């Protein structure tokens, strides 16, 4: 599988480290609701189909990416920087 990093271009997936579900991690709960934090830390869906995932380009630009991937086919339909810092950069 290859991932097209917005900065580095198309790279082999062994340049990356995967952290799983992006939406679960990028939506941090506010307040001190212990149930919500339990969900945030431990609970993950495991969809058969489109999945937004966090991948770290550890051997390249060292940026966190949000990769939209079909878990059935490995087809990648979108890659974006996980934060706004990288906006404007092009591959």
């Amino acid at each position, binding site marked *: 599988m290859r991932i097209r990093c917005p900065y580095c271009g198309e*790279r082999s997936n062994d340049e990356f480290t995967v952290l799983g579900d992006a939406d679960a991690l990028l939506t941090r709960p506010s307040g001190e609701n212990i149930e919500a934090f339990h969900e945030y830390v431990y609970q993950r869906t495991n969809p058969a189909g489109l999945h937004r995932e966090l991948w770290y380009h550890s*051997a*390249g*630009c060292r940026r966190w990416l949000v990769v939209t991937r079909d878990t059935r086919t490995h087809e990648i339909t979108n890659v974006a920087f996980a934060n706004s810092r*990288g906006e404007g*950069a*092009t591959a």
Partner: protein
Amino acid sequence: MADRTILNRSALAGLAKPGVIGAPTGNPGVRIREITEFAAITVIARRGRAAEVVEILSRHAGSPVADAAKRAGNASLSITGTAPGQWLVVARGAGNELDNMRADLNGIAAVTDQGDGRLIIEVCGARARDALAKGIAIDLDASVFKAGDAAQTSAAHTGLQIALIDEAPTFEMISARSTAESFWSWLVASAAEYGIEVV
């Protein structure tokens, strides 16, 4: 306490000895040159200041610097994008010009001296691409990786910054000093069949 002298030794001192190694082809397909005298800094733009940093770096380089995986500059100063809003600046020689650059970037970028923490080599020759292809996964073909292009990747599991200086082809390869020796052994093993001239 005994008097001690700190020796200024390049990363491949004692290893990259001038001469011909590998297959005796009569016409070495790969030439390798270690850059032994240089100074290097990393420049990381503060949030929202990348455009200003690009302007200052371009002024110092004397040519346009991009916020992208590109290498700009001249024979004595090179500026290579390594990540969004981030560059490695290398000055050949004593590197005094980096002081002015650091002053100009004060307040808009984090500038970190890399000291002698890098290995820098130039690899050229008719078989350079064939040798490098053995351990580098990105496409270095002349139709894809052009002069001024740069990439942050790995070679034989060692972190590598690579750029194409000219279409000779001359590749610039920058690696961490701490892994220079294993990087060197990979490069020599990969290029040996084409004949290597260390200059």
